[in-house]
């Protein structure tokens, strides 16, 4: 039986300062992240002891230097929030890792809360810049000059499922799922074949099938084996192949379908061999074809379009859901997936209210038509970039949403609440509540631990190796009977 798909996303945002010729990304990121203030606002460390980004899922350890900043730098670059998220500086980008959730709808809520948290800090940071300068943030993945930054997805998986099988069954799915979750891009880069518009922001950057790297020679399937949980029982599938999405519908579908396919892999429900002859070439071919009609070569010699490959997965999912007890959400995801694939087969542009790459393309084409512009016009490139702008009054995705051109999945009230409230059914609840209740006594945090500094006692680290423990049902009594951090530590010892 497949294990519950605990999941979360890590989004790196593009950052620039308009009106500052000497813009420095790293100091701007530090300013941004520190401009976000919550009541607890203690100096809390991110606990790097628990991290091992150099372990490979294929069973070995890669040589390399593990990054560990000094204490002051650590505090300046890392914020853990009372909603259980991590908001931090990753190299030259601000990054938001949402708290662990157990379903796609909640993932949409928390990813969207992240957008608002970044926008709130952007406004605060901009106020500190010299007159005329303004900080800008973009939820996209490329500067269209060959530099890419990631939008990673994480899914808890059963370690008993062989990684080789995961790779085999996921590869055709990952190469083709972009037809319903690409964020769209004008032109190509990274020596990609020239095109006017393509489905994915990221396809141009994938150069190999399976590897540990994320920054160079990017692989379609990343092998980082850092479960942030009990490593005897779990792995965390670290998905780097996706785009940063703005459409709620797209985020919901991307997450829902991917987690369903992962459950199917765990339950042995994927039996067809859909292996592609050349996945790295295919991911680009699919991206470069907004008509969704071009077929790619399978190893079997067959040729199928991306939509047809997705339909094969859909059929297996129908059979799987008929024979297993699945959630109401999984049923809803299945229905939406089917509806979207039918539209992609008939006329992809019919999805102009649901799927990011279609929404953007439709908007750009309307503008081009009225203004008689071609795809290489600077205004067209500007539209592409500004679709991802986080300012509610300037961001073109938000403009479409305001005009009723974006199908919603969640409510604004739910998003607003998630800025300060953790999910209740994962360990994120315990993490967030500890920060809210005992902030000044929290010494360090990681996904699977939280440590306290109480009085003169040695630091007490509490491990959370089970992502589903630490939920509200699990710890509310403990928290309520612990008015102070000292009480909490004592009660945990008892």
């Amino acid at each position: 039986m497949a294990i519950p798909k605990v999941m979360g996303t890590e989004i790196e945002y593009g950052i620039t300062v308009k009106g500052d010729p000497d813009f420095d990304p790293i100091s701007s990121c530090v300013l941004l992240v520190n401009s976000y203030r919550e009541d607890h606002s203690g100096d809390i460390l991110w606990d790097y002891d628990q991290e091992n980004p150099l372990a490979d899922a294929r069973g070995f350890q890669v040589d390399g230097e593990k990054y560990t900043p000094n204490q002051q730098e650590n505090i300046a670059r890392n914020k853990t929030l009372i909603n259980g998220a991590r908001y931090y500086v990753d190299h030259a980008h601000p990054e938001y890792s949402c708290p662990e959730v157990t379903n796609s709808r909640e993932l949409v809520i928390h990813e969207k809360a992240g957008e608002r948290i970044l926008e709130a800090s952007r406004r605060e940071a901009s106020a500190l810049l010299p007159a005329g300068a303004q900080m800008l943030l973009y939820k996209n993945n490329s500067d269209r000059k060959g530099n890419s930054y990631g939008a990673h997805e994480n899914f808890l998986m059963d370690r008993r499922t062989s990684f080789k099988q995961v790779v085999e069954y996921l590869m055709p799915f990952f190469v083709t799922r972009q037809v319903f979750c690409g964020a769209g891009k004008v032109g190509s880069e990274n020596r990609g074949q020239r095109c006017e518009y393509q489905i994915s922001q990221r396809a141009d950057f994938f150069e190999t099938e399976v590897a540990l790297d994320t920054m160079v020679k990017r692989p379609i399937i990343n092998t980082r084996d850092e479960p942030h949980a009990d490593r005897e029982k779990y792995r965390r599938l670290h998905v780097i192949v996706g785009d940063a999405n703005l459409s709620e519908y797209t985020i919901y579908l991307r997450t829902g379908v991917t987690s369903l396919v992962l459950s199917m892999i765990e339950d042995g429900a994927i039996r067809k061999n859909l292996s592609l002859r050349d996945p790295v070439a295919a991911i680009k071919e699919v991206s470069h074809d907004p008509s969704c009609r071009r077929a790619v070569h399978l190893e079997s010699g067959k040729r199928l379009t991306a939509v047809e490959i997705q339909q094969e997965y859909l059929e297996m999912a129908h059979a799987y859901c008929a024979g297993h007890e699945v959630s109401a959400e999984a049923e809803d995801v299945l229905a939406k997936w089917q509806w979207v694939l039918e539209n992609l087969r008939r006329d992809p542009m019919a999805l102009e209210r649901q799927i990011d790459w279609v929404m953007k393309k439709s908007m750009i084409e309307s503008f081009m038509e009225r203004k008689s512009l071609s795809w290489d016009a600077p205004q067209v490139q500007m539209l592409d970039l500004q679709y991802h702008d986080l300012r509610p009054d300037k961001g073109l995705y938000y403009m479409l949403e305001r005009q009723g051109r974006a199908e919603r999945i969640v409510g604004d009230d739910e998003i607003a609440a998630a800025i300060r409230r953790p999910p209740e059914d994962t360990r994120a609840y315990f993490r967030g509540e500890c920060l809210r209740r005992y902030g000044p006594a929290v010494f360090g945090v990681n996904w699977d631990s939280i440590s306290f500094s109480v009085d003169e006692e040695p630091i007490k680290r509490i491990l959370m190796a089970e992502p589903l423990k630490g939920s509200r049902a699990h710890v509310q009594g403990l928290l309520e009977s612990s008015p102070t951090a000292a009480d909490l530590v004592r009660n945990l010892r008892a």
Partner: protein
Amino acid sequence: MQHHTTTRARRADEQGLLGIVSAADTTQRKVPKKGGGEGEEPEASGSQKLAKRGKELKEEMDALVDEIDEVLEENAEEFVKNYVQRGGE
């Protein structure tokens, strides 16, 4: 699945509008939605419907382009040229 009950979806989106604007702390003006949308005549024939929808779409597109014109960054060429990121991840 009912993805396209237009009126219902629009109502939901209008709630979204209020939320975003209040969260945004701006004085973004509300764009009047063109093309009606409410109360489609159920007895209209296929081609009439299509023609009406075509006209609505044209009006909606005009409204869209007008609003883009208002918010699009000036000096697009320079802006896009200057948007350079370091690789991440």
